[in-house]
Structure formats: C-alpha cells, structure tokens
C-alpha cells in the first residue's frame, strides 16, 4: 500500500501537504505527522475515557474544537432535551471539553452546527492544514486544500495526547472532471457519478485530488460536497487545490488569519497545487457534459444511476454473485427488478447532513420548491445555526414551510438515526445525505441519495423525478 516516491522533482498537492506535516519518517515507512486542527463531537467519548484511564492530559487544547452535532435534537427544546440518553451524550461532550479546556461549539452557541459545516464556516479549516476528526466525513475539509481524514477512537485518544498521528502514505489518484455540466447538475451528481464508476472501494488506499475545469468552476460549497463523498469511494481523503474561489471564501472568517497575515497566508497557500509534471498512481477522466442527475437505487452509494434509467434486473445478470447482490439490495429497497427509477414513489424527503446542508444547497432546493407543494412530508435541517439564520434572512424557510416541509434546527439529524430524527421501517426517503446503507436513517429505512434539487423534485412529484423540467425557465 506504500506509495512510491515520485522519481522527478515535480510533486503533487498531496505530496506537499504530507511533507509539511512530517515529524518522523521511520525506515519501515511509518510517518508521524503533526495535526493542526482536531475536531471532536459527542461520539468522541471513547477517546476521552481512554485519557481518563491513563490520567492523561490534552497536548494542545487550543488546537482542539468540540462541536455538538451527532446527537442534538433538531426539534423541540434544545436546552432541556427530552430523551435522557441523548441529553447524557450532549452533556458528556460538554463535560469532557470543559475538563480539558477545549473550546466547544455547544447547543448554547450561535455558531453550533455540523462539525464539517462549522469548521470551514468559522475559518478553522484552512488550506495547507492537517485536520482529523473521529468521523469518516472529515474528508469534507479537503475542499479547501487541507489534508483531512477520519480516524477511530484509539487515534482520537492518540491525537488528544500528542497532537500527532501515525500514517502510511497513501497512493495518489487524480480525478479530472472537465467541461461544463448541464443545467440542474450539482456537485452531488458529480460525486455519485464518480462513485458509480469507480466503486465504493475504488479509491481505497488513495488520496484523491479533484481537478479539471468543472471542479474549478464549483463553489466552495460544491467542493465540500464532493470531498465529503470521497470517503464513499473508500478514499483516505479528497482534495481540491486552493484558488481564488477558496481565498475569497475564507477572507474575514473569524478563525482565519486577518489583514496582512491573510495576504501572507494566501501567498503560501497558492503553492499548494500539483506541479505540472507531477505523476499520480492512478488517473480518472470524466466529461462533465456526460453527467445526468443521478440517484441511488440500492444499499451502497455505488448503486447509483441516472434518473432516466431503470434499476437492474438480477435475471439479466450473468455473474451469480453479482445477481445475488442485486436481488438482496432490491429486496431490501422494496423495488421490483427493472423498474423505472422515475416510477418509484417516495414516502418522505430529507434535506440536510454534512454533505448537503449549506446555504447553496438550501437555495438549490428552494428554487425548485418555490410556489409548489410537496406531496410527501419532509424535514429540512440547515448545516449550522448560522446557515439557518442566513436562510431565514433570504426567506428560504418560508419557501420550505409553504411547500409543507418542516424547518428544523441544525445537527446531523436524519442522516445518522441516533438523535430522534428517523425514517420509519419500510419507509422510502429521498435524501441529500451520504449513505444509503441498510438501516442508516433508522432500522428498516430505505434511502435514495441525490442532490438537494433532486430531493425537491421528488418532494413535489411524490416520486423520484428529473429536476431539469422543473427548473426550466426558473432562476436557479
């Protein structure tokens, strides 16, 4: 799995990020890397328990940030949480961060939100940083040119204690998306198209750099969605080289360098790009014009097809193991073999999660929903309390409410099935989340992943639907 060193002096963006954090490189290839930012959440309690067992202290509490997101309720009282187990999880994080002098964006903080929304929004996530969090979607932060990846509880304990982490250098993969996507195509469509093509393990052992004109044209919000989903292709991390779009996004963010320090930083950050002749261990080329609105039909993010397609028919599948996989996935999802995707009726919709809950996502959904009514119930949970505020200032909450959807507080909400927001057993949900795993949104829940605009299209149609006719002639 160890990547070979580039023979030439040209280096990839990933090589540069790696070198900048290398404290020790052992002969066996294991490297000790410095961690610039460490985000913790309610689920980090195993690691704090580990510290308590060893009577250990946190090496760099100033570089560690707590965010309450996984368990927080999005409806009902947030100051007096009704469910005692959920209340205990939220309180436990507050206790652990207070004990170690770690700043917490808790429920009483107006900046609270999903950790992968809050980090970039606050300017904590910056180009050139190494960022870890005990959450697989930490890959999100690579959108700003940071080397960011999810870790387990033992590693969280290690980072808390030492502010460092042992890593083997992954291989480098470049996914170039060139050309112009058609109207109605979002970063989520690009991400799902890539995963459908390379598979849910297509990038295992690799750091992905997303490049090409279609990536350059994406907003930071779109890049965050794309890098967020890179873990669903198995990647160690996803990256987009920082550029003018990145710098404009970061300028003035509370925890980013300010004034002249910012300008100096931009000079340094501009060097975080792959050199022209740098070589990658693998390359994938995608034409943006070929990407259609895409939805998942099965129980892995790789089970994704353009909305005008039909779900597979196991009877037509020559490979026996593959046919069995298709049968089991379709059986769980309650879909007849060969059925047209656009004929699949949904029971509810969800807009939210670290994948698609930023202001641009809410605008895209609202553009479809404006003046229309949802045929099914649904929940909209903004990615942070600040996103919620902004959406309300823009009147988006009214559009969602007028369409019949519920406008909730910020948190991981219906993506994780642990905070009270659940999809019922056997229910089918069109969702902007990242995982269509069995039971992910609740035991027995059936999830179809898609972009916010496509979820809005499903809402107003009552079934999976192509968003393009619904936005024709509308202002996006």
């Amino acid at each position, binding site marked *: *799995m160890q990547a070979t060193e580039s023979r030439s002096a040209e280096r990839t963006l990933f090589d540069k990020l790696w070198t900048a954090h290398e*404290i*020790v490189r*052992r002969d*066996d*290839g294991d490297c*000790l890397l*410095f961690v*610039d930012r460490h985000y913790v959440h309610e*689920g980090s*309690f*195993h690691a704090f*328990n580990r510290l308590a067992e*060893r009577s250990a202290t946190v090496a760099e509490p*100033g*570089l560690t940030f707590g965010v309450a997101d996984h368990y927080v309720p999005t409806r009902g009282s947030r100051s007096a949480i009704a469910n005692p187990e959920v209340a205990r999880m939220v309180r436990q994080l507050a206790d652990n961060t*207070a004990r170690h*002098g770690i700043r917490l964006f808790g429920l009483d903080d107006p900046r609270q939100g999903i950790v992968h929304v809050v980090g970039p929004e606050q300017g904590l996530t910056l180009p*050139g*940083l190494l960022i870890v969090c*005990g*959450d*697989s979607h930490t890959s999100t932060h690579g959108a700003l040119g940071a080397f960011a990846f*999810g*870790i*387990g*509880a*033992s*590693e969280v304990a290690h980072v808390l*204690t*030492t502010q*460092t982490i*042992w890593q*083997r250098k992954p291989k480098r993969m470049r996914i170039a998306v060139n050309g112009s996507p058609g109207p109605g195509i979002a970063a989520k469509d690009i991400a799902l198209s890539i995963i459908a093509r390379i598979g*849910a*393990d297509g990038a*295992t*052992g690799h750091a992905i750099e997303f490049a090409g004109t279609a990536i350059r044209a994406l907003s930071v919000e779109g890049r965050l969605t794309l890098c967020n989903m890179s873990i669903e292709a*198995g990647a*160690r991390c996803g990256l987009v080289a920082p550029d003018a779009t990145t710098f404009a996004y970061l300028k003035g963010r*509370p*925890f980013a360098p*300010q004034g002249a*320090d*910012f300008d*100096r*930083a931009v000079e*340094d*950050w501009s060097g975080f790009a792959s050199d022209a002749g740098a070589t990658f261990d693998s390359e994938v080329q995608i034409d943006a014009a070929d990407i259609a609105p895409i939805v998942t039909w099965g129980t*892995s993010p790789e089970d994704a097809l353009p909305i005008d397609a039909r779900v597979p028919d196991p009877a037509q599948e020559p490979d026996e*193991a593959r046919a069995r*996989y298709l049968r089991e996935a379709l059986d769980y999802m309650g879909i007849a073999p060969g059925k047209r995707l656009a004929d699949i009726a949904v029971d509810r919709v969800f807009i939210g999660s670290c994948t698609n809950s930023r202001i641009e996502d809410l605008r895209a959904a609202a553009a479809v929903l404006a003046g229309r009514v949802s045929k099914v119930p649904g929940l909209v949970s903004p990615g942070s309390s600040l996103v919620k505020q902004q959406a309300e200032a823009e009147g988006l909450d009214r559009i969602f409410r007028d369409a019949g959807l519920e406008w909730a507080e910020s948190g991981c909400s219906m993506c994780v*099935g*642990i905070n009270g927001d659940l999809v019922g057993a056997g229910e089918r949900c069109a969702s902007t989340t990242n*995982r269509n*795993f*069995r*039971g*992910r949104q609740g*035991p027995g829940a059936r999830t179809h992943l898609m972009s916010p605009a496509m979820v809005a299209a499903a809402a107003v149609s009552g079934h999976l639907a192509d968003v393009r006719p619904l936005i024709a002639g509308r202002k996006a």
Partner: protein
Amino acid sequence: MDKFTRLTAAACPLMVENLNTDQILPARFLKWPRSQGLGQALLRDMRFDAEDREAVDFPLNRPEWRKAHILVGARNFGCGSSREAAVYALYDYGIRCVIAPSFGDIFAGNAVQNGLLAAIVSDDDAEVIAAALIHAPTLPLTIDLEQQTILCGNRTYTFAIDPVRRLRLLNGWDDLDLTQSYAADIAAFKTKDGIRRPWAALPRATAPRPSKE
C-alpha cells in the same frame, strides 16, 4: 493490546459485499460504553429479525459457526463510518481475524489498534475459502501472522497486510508508547513550524475565553 501470532479456530463465511460498519454495529448501540458488552450488538440487525428473534439462516447463528473466531468476508469489509466500536463489537464477540479481499481504510486502522487481524486475500481465494467452509463447516482455519499464511484443509493461502501493522500485531505494541519516544522530535517540529507556517496558528484574538465557573 493483545498480541496476534497464530490462531487455529472455527471460521464463519460472511460473503456480503460492502459490509459497512453501520451493519457491523448499528448506530443505536453507539451510545453504549464498551463495558456494556458490545459483542451482543454485533451485526445485530442481520443476526436478529425485527422482533428480536434469531435469524436462522444467518451464518453466525449456525451451531458450527456460533463460536467462530474468524470471519471470511467479501470486498470492502468495514467500509463507511469510522466507528471503532464496530471493531470492539467484533472483538468482544470473539472474532480475532477477518479475511477479505479489501477493507475500509479506517476500519483496517481501527482493527490493528485493537489486536484484530484484517488479512487481505484475493477475491478468488476468499471465494474458495468460503466455499470450503460451507462444504465443511467444522473445518478450522489456521492463521499464521509470522508467515502470512492461512491453512484451510490441505491448502495454504497467503495473505497481505501492511508490514508495519503486522509488526504491531505480532508485538502488541501501543502507538502511544512509540510516539512518546519521539517527544524531542515533536518539540523541534513545533518550533520550526511556527516560523515556517505562521498562518497555521490561530489568530491571537481568538484565544479561548476563560472557562465558565
């Protein structure tokens, strides 16, 4: 951490592609401390039906495999969520080794931290080993980490594992002890880094407020 050197034990085939950590440990058990007994939560929604009755067809529920210490899985075993409790659940159930053609990256890292061997074999070998077990369910497998071999009946298969991870498992090393031996290097890095990357530090104005009384 317990060492892993050699193991001869019953092995259960579980040939499900993309068996993610949400399946291995369903989210509702994430609140549990490990002391609550995560082994009972392992693969809960596959081992038990909605009425909490054992699923008779599920391999781990078969008498020959109920006490298996080895699982044979399909590609991308342990993909998805970073939850280390998925490894706790496997380990506390009694699983010491998972054999599969590929593993989720974070899962494989979590496994080595807890003394669980994630052994990589080819797709074909995984299929052949699983088929042999289905044909002869009581056939034990012998895993030799030193030699990186799996003995199945009279056939021997080799498996891959990152050499550093192999050493850690063989010796039961703890990362923290290793890191502490590099304390001087860490200190030196931080001094140099402050000059090299001033923008990596947080602006002074954002220093944490004194904690509430």
